[in-house]
């Protein structure tokens, strides 16, 4: 203990190793961010300077949101040594039920654009998602059918179910308020509110570092050097402020801005109205924070990881393994409902084919983000970055004008290579 502390104190900010040890930055996470930077810069150069623009980055954030939300749940599913192949079909089914709810059932009760419509439809969707997850989880945890099989069945069954709800008919349009969940001009919160959220996030980062330090000191544990805390705070706040600054420089389309200004009796300011953070991105970030809290700060999260590390040991230690597994699938179902809300709202329609192949993107995001298919290891933040990596590849290739089949080939290759690199990294560490 004493020598660990002194080693840490001696860590110099001038060497890479010393810097990493002192700041306790996860090298894996750093590697992923590095890979993301390479992808972004590569596409920026290859696409003739269209990738790293506020417009594209804003779109990227919105397009990643649905997969990112679901990937956070998939991390816990995979950490407990399970898999969920049914998320895409569940998304289709839940999206369809939410669509029918708000576009066909609820309007017969209280007419169109009632202020309660969106929340009732969303709550209903989340309820359906949790119920489906509970069904999957119960069969997996209590009846002992492998998750691969149960959710493979779910993949077929819920896609069929999605068709059944309306006999294949597309449901549109969504409720006006509900559609905001999907982003777009109205579904963004604007510059001022975005700055406010950024400042709140910075305050939270600094407070977290400060209280963490106080707490460690009160128990007499080794502390990070002060400069390392400072660097962490600076990096965290810098990233938040930079992201918001980028989103705030993406203006509304000028026609939309003019029409809005006219309707509200003002003029369009210099530079136009800024988009700021999109609502689906806020949803994804909130889910990310909430899921990270759940995974690292609660008993439930601790049990999820312990089960992944050694299910028998968890059972012998008194953990109710079956119930924890069932809850993980319920959580996955609820998150799929949020993903379905984002995706249907963005399309402003619920279609039969919605979410097709999403299960694979979600699993890929989690795995690229460092979740081990052997169970027991993975982070929420990593999975969300994984979702952004997947989306960056896709939208970058679209910008470059690559054909869809070629895009799929590249995404497939990247997935395999990413896991290979990760396997080597783990092998070297162990």
């Amino acid at each position: 203990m004493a020598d660990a502390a002194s080693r840490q104190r001696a860590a110099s900010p001038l060497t890479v190793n010393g810097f990493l040890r002192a700041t306790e930055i996860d090298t894996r996470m750093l590697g992923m961010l590095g890979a993301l930077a390479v992808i972004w810069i590569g596409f920026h150069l290859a696409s003739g300077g269209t990738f790293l623009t506020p417009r594209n980055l804003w779109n990227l954030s919105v397009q990643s949101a649905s997969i990112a939300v679901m990937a956070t749940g998939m991390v816990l599913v995979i950490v407990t040594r399970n898999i969920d192949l049914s998320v895409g079909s569940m998304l289709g089914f839940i999206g369809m039920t939410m669509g029918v709810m708000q576009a066909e059932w609820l309007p017969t009760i209280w007419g169109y654009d009632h202020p309660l419509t969106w929340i009732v439809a969303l709550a209903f969707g989340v309820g359906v998602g949790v119920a489906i997850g509970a069904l999957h989880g119960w069969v997996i945890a209590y009846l002992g059918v492998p998750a691969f099989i149960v959710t493979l069945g779910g993949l077929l069954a819920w896609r069929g179910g999605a068709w059944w709800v309306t006999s294949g008919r597309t449901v549109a349009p969504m409720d006006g308020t509900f559609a905001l969940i999907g982003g777009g001009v109205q579904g963004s919160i604007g510059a001022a509110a975005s700055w406010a959220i950024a400042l709140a996030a910075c305050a939270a980062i600094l407070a977290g570092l400060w209280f963490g330090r106080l707490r460690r000191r009160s128990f007499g544990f080794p502390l990070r050097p002060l400069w390392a805390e400072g660097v962490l705070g600076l990096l965290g706040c810098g990233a938040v402020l930079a992201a918001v600054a980028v989103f705030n420089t993406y203006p509304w389309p000028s026609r939309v801005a003019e029409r809005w200004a006219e309707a509200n009796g003002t003029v369009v300011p210099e530079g136009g109205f800024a988009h700021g953070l999109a609502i689906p991105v806020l949803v994804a970030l909130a889910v990310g924070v909430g899921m990270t809290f759940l995974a690292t700060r609660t008993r439930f999260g601790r049990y999820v990881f312990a089960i992944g590390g050694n299910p028998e040991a968890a059972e012998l230690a008194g953990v109710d393994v079956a119930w924890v597994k069932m809850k993980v699938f319920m959580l996955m179902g609820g998150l799929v409902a949020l993903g379905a809300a984002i995706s249907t709202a963005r399309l402003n329609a619920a279609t039969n084919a919605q979410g097709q192949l999403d299960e694979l993107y979600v699993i890929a995001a989690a795995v690229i983000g460092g979740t081990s298919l052997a169970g027991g290891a993975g982070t929420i933040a990593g999975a969300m970055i994984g979702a952004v990596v997947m989306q960056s590849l896709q939208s970058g290739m679209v910008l470059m004008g690559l054909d869809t089949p070629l895009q799929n080939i590249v995404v497939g290759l990247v997935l395999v290579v990413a896991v290979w690199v990760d396997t080597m990294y783990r092998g070297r560490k162990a």
Partner: protein
Amino acid sequence: MTDANATPLVEMRDISIAFGGVKAVDGVSVDLRAGEVVALLGHNGAGKSTLIKILSGAYPRDSGEILVNGQPAEIENPRDAKKYGIETIYQSLALADNVDAAANLFLGRELTTRWGTLDDAAMEAACREVMGRLNPNFTRFKEPVKALSGGQRQSVAIARAIHFNARILIMDEPTAALGPQETAQVAELTLQLKQEGIGIFLISHDIHDVFDLADRVAVMKNGKLVGSGRVGDMTKDEVLGMIILGKCPPGATPGPGALAA
């Protein structure tokens, strides 16, 4: 020594369990008093680990009853067993390899803050304290336990069993993974816990360990109890005869598994 007439701390009566038609444990009765070390001996596959897993709640018994302090105890799962103060150090150690020592120490019984979140700092502090007593050289509190040596992992498993005021301790081959020095430490710890009035079931294949530490032995063969008796009433050779041949010596009480004389 302990009072032979007092109510046993734990009593397992006529316990049976079968796996797919094979009777792994067949009508075995054993008991344990406070401050006593009872060694369970037998070949591999004799059913001793299975018997003990019934007591620790890992396997549900098919028949028989378990009494704790003379009262029937409902033990259906490991949580129930822990409620009765029954703690187990498994042969496999049963550690979650991917989390650190403190997380393993408190697995299933995490300390929480007043908001219900994990109190990692408090758990680490408690872990440092208990490990400081058990294994003062232990410093790797931040690493997943898979990075630890066999002896260090063993001390985490032992720490977990004794940290929660166990009254009944089950040690399944506690020294199988240890070197001579660590084995001596475990023996010392066993005697110390015995002094504190804890009842200990010691499962071992090493008859020498057992003769130094145990007050009584119970021998199993093919799922049945060959016999049990006080260590002072038999020789090592007689105990070996029980293990290998199922022959119950005159100094021991024969069980249903004893070779017909």
